[in-house]
């Protein structure tokens, strides 16, 4: 008798708990929906000039301006495409070089000084990832002038963060035994890193660098919009001339170069790992 009452009590408790979580969940859903409605009201309904957009027909007419693609532009596209490709490549290479000290500082178990250099490494990673590539490009264009060089720098600054974050995380859960073996035969700190840590993380590092290269092609395509070279410059020129059909051609070129980059990066990553 006593047992059953205890049981009943516990069942009641469970039911009560379930009901409470359910209420909380529905409240959360309600808040989410209200937030969405509020955002829609402010950003879409109030802020948009519906008069200017007009009906569906005007929008379709606006889209139709982009077709058919302007094929006469193709012969001017070869050089910027190669440039974009090279900007992404050089940017990734520079990022690989610059990521090494960041990884060294930012990995908790090999950092030279946990109180001083570890936060520096972490801050560098966050800063590099959090600033958008357009902002980096603006900074470097004002620092080194127009041309492909600021594009390379901006692309590399943006990708340092990702490469070094993933690599530092893989260094932090590296296998301890090779490190101890090298310490046991009398290796110093530097040799421990060189022979114990690096061989274990180099596939991760290179794999990520290739992945970043793939993304960097995408980033390099817009560098021209703020004055660094590549396909973005051609795009900007077409936009300024209101040649919307040319814009479509440039976008098709971007699609092609990115597909190519994806194929190459797929096989390169397969070869490395």
């Amino acid at each position: 008798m006593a047992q059953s009452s205890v049981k009943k009590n516990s069942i009641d408790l469970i039911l009560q708990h379930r009901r409470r979580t359910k209420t909380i969940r529905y409240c959360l859903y309600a808040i989410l929906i209200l937030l969405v409605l509020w955002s829609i009201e402010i950003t879409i309904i109030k802020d948009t000039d519906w008069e200017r957009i007009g009906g569906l027909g005007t929008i379709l007419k606006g889209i139709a301006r982009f077709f058919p693609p302007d094929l006469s532009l193709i012969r001017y596209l070869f050089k910027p495409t190669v440039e974009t490709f090279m900007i992404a490549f050089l940017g990734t290479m520079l990022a690989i070089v610059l990521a090494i000290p960041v990884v060294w500082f930012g990995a908790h178990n090999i950092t030279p000084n946990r109180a001083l250099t570890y936060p520096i490494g972490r801050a560098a990673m966050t800063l590099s990832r959090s600033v958008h590539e357009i902002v980096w490009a603006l900074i470097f264009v004002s620092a080194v002038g127009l041309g492909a060089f600021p594009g390379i720098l901006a692309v590399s600054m943006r990708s340092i963060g990702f490469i070094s974050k993933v690599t530092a995380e893989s260094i932090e859960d590296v296998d301890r035994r090779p490190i101890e073996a090298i310490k046991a035969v009398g290796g110093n700190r530097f040799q421990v890193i060189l022979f114990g840590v690096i061989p274990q993380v180099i596939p991760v590092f290179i794999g990520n660098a290739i992945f970043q290269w793939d993304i960097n092609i995408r980033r390099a395509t817009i560098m021209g919009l703020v004055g660094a070279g590549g396909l973005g410059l051609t795009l900007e020129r077409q936009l300024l001339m209101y040649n919307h059909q040319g814009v479509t051609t440039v976008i098709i070129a971007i699609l092609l170069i990115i597909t190519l980059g994806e194929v190459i990066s797929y096989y390169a990553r397969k070869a490395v790992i």
Partner: protein
Amino acid sequence: MRSDEKKNLPSSFKAAVTEPRRTWSRFKYPQSVIRYCVYLVIFVFIVYSLEYLNVPVGRFFTMFGRLGDMVTKKYYPPEIPYVLQKDYLRYVLETVQMAYLGALFGILFSLPVSWFASFNVTPSRRFAYPVARFIIMASRSVHEMIWTIIFVIVIGFGMFPGVIALTMFSIGFAGKLFSEEIEAIKIGQVEAIRSTGANPFQVFIYAVLPQVRVALAGISIYTWDSAFRAATVLGYFGAGGMGWYLKESVERLETLRVSAILLTIVCLVVVSEVASAWARNRISKMK
């Protein structure tokens, strides 16, 4: 003594009894040559592209001094009161809303798209699969800034084109991660539901979605985070939000304001990143 013996032997025999190499090397003969060739090709390509792009390499080292000069003379101290005024803060809020809506719409659209684009559960491999793959690839490969420019041309200035551009960005971003997640599910449940006579939609709802629910929540938060990062500069090309202020200040060369705006962007993105990392951690613990 041994080398003397070897000298007298016929050459064909000598090759057969080569002693093991004294120095250890990680890569054996054909691999090592391929490796060095790859290094050489990469190096040559670096030099060639530096030439092709006319990169002033020397400027790389003098750049730091100039950057330091620029920061201390022109960009310091940032004009903090400018970013504390009410209009700017309203724009910051609008940026958050824009990113929120864009990511939300993108995630909602990318659910069916990623369902079609996962090879193992797609309703039709011949038709839906390639179409969905193409949608994901196209929206991923066109940069969000180019989407913004296109939609600003079609629709006009304001936050609406920004929301649509972020939607396109999120479809590509979340769609790819979703479909990778769906392709890694266990097929047993799918077959069990299918054998009860369920149609593809029911299979997706009852067999696929429960398996990937937690991962989808994590990816959605990550998508929102990335969308917010993009939203901070979307205004630079005419969509709403704080990027508009950035463009205005950059073009008027009001560098103190630019540095203050950049400071707010960095702070906001770091806050959103910390929040999203915390939320993703909580969600992955729920697994």
